[in-house]
């Protein structure tokens, strides 16, 4: 019996070790300011670094694909997500956009982000790494993004451990094994349990911060509701800070009109 236990234990850990890393992107610390001006809400649950992306990994393990998103601080669960059917964290909401086919796909981000993707970097699939349970996500998608539903992937498992959010996805849901030649964009947002009627569980960025509103943007919908992204070459260099700020720079006129920003994708196999 004892021997069987150890065999099972070793097999289990070795299975974990055998997962193959396909993508490993880095992001600089301290750039969780969107276009450089965004600030966190003022309520103390939003601890510094809570929305600061640091690393993104894609691993393949059998018929599953594992996404790991590391942030700059330990992930907490101040709103007791288990009590509302959630996944063990409360604040973060990460959307992983995947460009698996050239010159095709959806060019608009999901509702609530106020972003588009560059015409040559549109997406085929988006994986939602959310603290919300599957039922809530499905309901929100049916309500606010029904036309995109078949390309929105809800992981079979989502969890938080330390500084890392992990999502386990069926390979078939992504349309195949992820490749380094695919494009990836990881968008950091904040989970809003009581979102605006058009926002898919995203927290608003306003001109000035509120207790539960980001500040530094616009009160209208011309600013990207995005805290952090990855930019090429995604090695975590300081130059990527300014590249991100530039990518997310927005223009709003006095009436709150302006073009949506166009986000780039990161193509790992093009990183030198």
């Amino acid at each position, binding site marked *: 019996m004892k021997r069987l236990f150890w065999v099972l234990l070793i097999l289990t850990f070795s299975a974990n070790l055998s997962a193959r890393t396909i993508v490993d992107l880095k992001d600089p610390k301290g750039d969780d300011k969107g276009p450089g001006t965004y600030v966190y809400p003022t309520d103390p649950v939003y601890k510094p670094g809570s929305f600061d992306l640091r690393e993104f990994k894609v691993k393949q393990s059998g018929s599953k694909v594992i996404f790991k998103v590391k942030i700059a601080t330990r992930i907490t669960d101040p709103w007791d997500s288990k009590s509302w059917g959630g996944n063990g964290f409360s604040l973060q909401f990460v959307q992983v956009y995947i460009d698996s086919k050239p010159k095709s796909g959806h060019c608009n981000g999901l509702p609530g982000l106020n972003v588009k993707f560059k015409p040559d970097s549109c997406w085929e699939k988006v994986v939602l790494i959310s603290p919300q349970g*599957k039922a809530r996500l499905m309901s929100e998608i049916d309500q606010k993004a029904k036309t995109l539903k078949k390309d929105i992937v809800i992981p079979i498992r989502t969890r938080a451990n330390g500084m890392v959010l992990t999502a386990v996805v069926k390979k078939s849901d992504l349309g195949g094994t992820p490749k380094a030649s695919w494009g990836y964009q990881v968008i950091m947002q904040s989970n809003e349990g009581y979102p605006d009627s058009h926002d898919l569980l995203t927290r608003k960025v306003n001109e000035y911060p509120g207790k539960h509103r980001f500040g530094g943007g616009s009160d209208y919908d011309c600013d990207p509701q995005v805290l952090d992204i990855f930019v090429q070459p995604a090695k975590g260099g300081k130059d990527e800070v300014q590249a991100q700020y530039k990518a997310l720079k927005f223009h709003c006129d006095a009436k709150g009109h302006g073009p949506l920003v166009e986000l780039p994708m990161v193509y790992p196999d093009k990183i030198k």
Partner: protein
Amino acid sequence: MKKALIPLLLLATVPAMAKITNFDFAGRLYTKWLYRNDDSQGLLTYGNPFWPDNMAGDNGVGTEFELKIFGRVSKYVQAYVRVKSRFGELWQDWWENGDMKYPGQVNTSGESMGMNHASYIKLRGFYVRFAPPIPGVDWITVGSSDLGMFNAWTIGKVRFIDRDNGKGWFIDGHIGHSGAFQYNLAIIALPKLYVGPWWSTGIGDPNLDNPFYSQDWAYAAKLNYDTPIGSLTLISDVTNDIEVDMTDPDAVGSLYPDCKDALGHPIPGCSKDHAVDYTSRYFSSNTTFEANLSPLDWLTNDFLVGMAYNRPNTQETANAVADNQGMSPIVYKKTLSYAVRERLYLDDPFDVGLSFKFEYFNIGANWNSIFGARRESDVLLTDGFLDGDQLPTLNLANEFLDFDESFVESCIGWHGGTAILDYDYDAFTMSLEGTFITYNTNGQNRDVDKTYPDFLHSNGYTDTDLFDYADVTDRGRDPRSVYHRNQDRRTWISVLKAKYTFDVLNGFDLGFKGKFIYDKDFRSHKTAADDYTGRILNMKSWLTMNVTDGLVLELGDKVGLWWEANREGTLQQGYHDYTTHKNITYFKLGYQYEGISLAYLFEWVRKKQYRQGMDDQYFNVLRSKATLEVNW
């Protein structure tokens, strides 16, 4: 000219119209159905434990409405208001206006059930926040706060349903240009309910003729320094409940209104001046220093040390330990105590999904966070005895709950350690915990008659599934009962949790949790006849399925097997063994559709309590809770 003035005057009388873009509204409607096979009526399983209320009960349906209004007054000024209807009106009430026209008499007038059944709209919270042009001051908030900027050892966080009850002045700012040094300062109105002896700041205290609570405040400060690898945080608070000095001849109910003693002799220095002096009835202060550092991405060290001071003025407050059956949120004497907690997280250091947590805790026997969190916070890693959290206070809030909500327990005096192994791989997750606790409250002949509150019912493993405040069902220890006359106790806790997600149909989770507690208390050293041994086994298994988009079904079963030797009794009359078998079968439904949220829980509880020397007890309870909620 006159003609020109008239429109101008009319304009001047029209109030300024606020721009609707400056408003942000949020509404919520919440309805709850609560049913059980008993004869109580009300909308809340556990209501107010100390005074009879006519809202708590197990059968009823009622609705509440909430409206939040956020205003942007200007760039630097924000305002917030939350109004909410009182929860407690049954749909069958049909009409109640809040009167109790015929107290004590049954009638159908619609003026009989009082405000609990009136669904009146109340101002629940408000604040004005502004960013003043003062260097180093970021925001000043005047009004409501959940006090979440401090910690559970000092002040807050206030439980969610009370999140706007605390009012005060709050200043948030920074020192220097880097932003690394931040501070929070607060002056908070002490709640007349709960912070102080007798769970009050004077009202209800037998020693006071004229409880004076309008100048009772708490003062708190937090200093935080962000280093490149983490933060250093110092938090300190003071609560001061003051009362009128009853020796002042100007005070209502003064002992010396004529400045003469009982024998009619003038009291030196005593004179009326149409002003009253104050004195402190209860004073407390808690301070913590916390270093939360992550020198490596996978390694976090969280060290906390604190001190707690408690000083009741025995002239100004009666002794609740002696006069209230040992029910008191404070130790009735001046105390100074300490707390140390060292926590280490090793988050997947080998990148194989294996993580470790270690914790050492040592909380002094006299520690008490009188204004700290009362629930919905947790200061220890362990799963503990109950399924809820551990908090270092006698002021726990296990009230205003439904049967499906967990209980918190006091960890005052706990000294020990916890090791937890977490494993995550693919769709499998597992956690294994081992905890050992001994108690700084161990001792012989502790004075639980006049000094240390024992909360009356202090023996046996607590049954929070079938709890009742007055302990008419023999439900075990009060979760606040940390002091005993004779105690020499140690506890071992082991917990195994595992969950696997099957990739079949829409996916389903299969979960298991098992907890075994070995609890040994030698009680009095004079005899072995009173030694308590508790072997507590609780298990839960469940299956969660995503049936369709938006519909989740959970089926589960909980089993409790408790063997308790010498659980209850006295040295004089002997102790009795208990054996408890409990089984709860349940199913849950959750449904989300286009913004509507429905939830349903049904439980069938069977419990057999075999009591040596007493009648056995059998419970057969069917109960359910359903909710419907919309937010817009």
